[in-house]
C-alpha cells in the first residue's frame, strides 16, 4: 500500500502535470468548484422563477427541475460529450462537457435548495420592503436573497460534496480527474486493485467526510444565529 502511495502519490494529486495536462485530485477539485460557481447564478434564477409570481416562468422552471431529476447524470454526460459537439459543429474538451453536464444537473437541485431558503423566510420581509417603497429588484437582491442564501449555506456546501462525488463520472468519458488517474494506475499495476481502489476510496472519503462535518458545524451555527424558524432541506 505504502509503495503505491510513494510511487503514484504525486500522480494522484496532480496527474501528469507538469509533463502533461493537470489531473488527479487537483482537477477533481477544480471541476467541482468551477461547476458549483457556474451553477450558483443559474440556481438563483431557477429559484426566483420557482418562487415568483409569473405563471409561465414558474411552469418552465418546474418543468426543467422535474425533467432533470428524472434523468441519470450519466445520460446528461453522454449528451454533453457525444451529442453536443455534433449539434454545435465543433469539438469541446471532455473536461468542459463534464462541467456542462454537472451544471445542468445541479442547477435543478441547487435551485430547489435556494427556493426552499426563499420560502423559509417570513412574509413580513417582503411586506416590510414594500412598505419602505423598494421595488422588485432591490427587494429580491438586497432583502430576500442575502438572507435566503445565508440560511441555506449548509445545503450549498453539502451540494459541493455531491458534486465532488459526481465528478468521478468523468472517468467514463476519459477526463483525467482522480478516478480516471487511479483507473490508469490500476491498469499499470494489474496485481493490486484492492489497494489502489482502497486508496482512491479513502481519498474521496477524507475530502467528503471533512466537508460533511463542516456542513454539520455550519448548520448548528446558523441555526443558533437565526432564532427564527428556518427549515433547511438537505437533499442527499
Amino acid at each position: 500500500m505504502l509503495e503505491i502511495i510513494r510511487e503514484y502519490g504525486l500522480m494522484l494529486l496532480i496527474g501528469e502535470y507538469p509533463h502533461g495536462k493537470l489531473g488527479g485530485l487537483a482537477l477533481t477539485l477544480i471541476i467541482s468548484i468551477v461547476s458549483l460557481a457556474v451553477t450558483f447564478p443559474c440556481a438563483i434564477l431557477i429559484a426566483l422563477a420557482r418562487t415568483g409570481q409569473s405563471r409561465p416562468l414558474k411552469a418552465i422552471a418546474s418543468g426543467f427541475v422535474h425533467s432533470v431529476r428524472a434523468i441519470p447524470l450519466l445520460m446528461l454526460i453522454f449528451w454533453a460529450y457525444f451529442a453536443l459537439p455534433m449539434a454545435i459543429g465543433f469539438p469541446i474538451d471532455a473536461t468542459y462537457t463534464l462541467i456542462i453536464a454537472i451544471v445542468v444537473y445541479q442547477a435543478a437541485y441547487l435551485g430547489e435548495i435556494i427556493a426552499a431558503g426563499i420560502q423559509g423566510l417570513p412574509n413580513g420581509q417582503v411586506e416590510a420592503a414594500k412598505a419602505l417603497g423598494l421595488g422588485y429588484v432591490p427587494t429580491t437582491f438586497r432583502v430576500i436573497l442575502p438572507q435566503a442564501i445565508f440560511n441555506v449555506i449548509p445545503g450549498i456546501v453539502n451540494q459541493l460534496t455531491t458534486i465532488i462525488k459526481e465528478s468521478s463520472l468523468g472517468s467514463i468519458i476519459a477526463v483525467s480527474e482522480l478516478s480516471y488517474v487511479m483507473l490508469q494506475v490500476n491498469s499499470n499495476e494489474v496485481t493490486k486493485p484492492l489497494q489502489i481502489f482502497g486508496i482512491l476510496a479513502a481519498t474521496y472519503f477524507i475530502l467528503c467526510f471533512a466537508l460533511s462535518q463542516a456542513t454539520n458545524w455550519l448548520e448548528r451555527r446558523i441555526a443558533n444565529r437565526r432564532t427564527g424558524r428556518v427549515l433547511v432541506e438537505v437533499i442527499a
Partner: protein
Amino acid sequence: MGYHLDFGKVLQGEYLDLILQGIQTTMVLFVLSWIFGLVLAIILTVVRAVKFRPTQLLVAAFVEYHRNVPMLIQLFVWYFGFAVVLPDAVNEYLNDIGAEIGYAIVALALNKAAYMSEDFRSGMRSIHPAQMEAARSIGLTYLGAMRWVILPQAWRLALPALLGQTLILFKGTSLAAGIGVAELSYQARYIEEQSFRIFEAYGIATAIYMLISFAIMWLSAVLSDRFRLRVK
C-alpha cells in the same frame, strides 16, 4: 450535411432487442438492489438501536463510507478490488455466469442500505422519547411499544425520504455501465457507436429513463400523501 432524425433506424431489429434487454437489466438491477437494500437497512437500523458501542460504531462507519465515497468508486472497489480476494476458481465461475451484474447489485444494495438506514433512524429520532415512556407506563412492553406506538409513526415519517432514495437508486443503476453491465445507458452507448445515430440512441434511452422516473415520482407522491402522518 444535414442530420435527419430517424428514430425508425434505432427502433428496429437488433437495436430494438438491445434496448429491450437494456431495460430488462436496468429493472433487474433496480428491483433486486432495492429489496436487498431495504432488508439490510432494517437490519442495520435495529443493530444501531441496540445500545452496544462496538456494533453501533461499525454501523456508523458502514454508513459514512457509503455516504462519502462516490457510488462509481464503490462499484470499482467491488468489481476490481473484491475479485482479487476470491480464489481463481471462484472468479472463473463468476465470470461465466456474469459477475458484473452481481457486483453491481451488491454495491448498489449496500449503498442504498446505508442511506435508507439513516432515513429510518431520523424517522425514529423525530418521535419524542416521552412517547416511549408514556407507552411503557400504560403497561406495554418495550417491543409492544415499538410495535404499536413508535414504528407506526416512524415508518410514515421516513417514507418520503425512502421514496426519494428509490428514485436515486433507479437513476444510480446507470452507473453499472461503468463496470460493463449491459443496462440501458450501456446499450445506448453501444447502439450509438454501431449506428452513429447519436441523437436517436440517447434520445430513446433518455425518454425511457424519464418515463420510469416520472412513474416513480408519481407513485411516491401518491404514497407519501396516503401514508402521511396526520396526528402530530
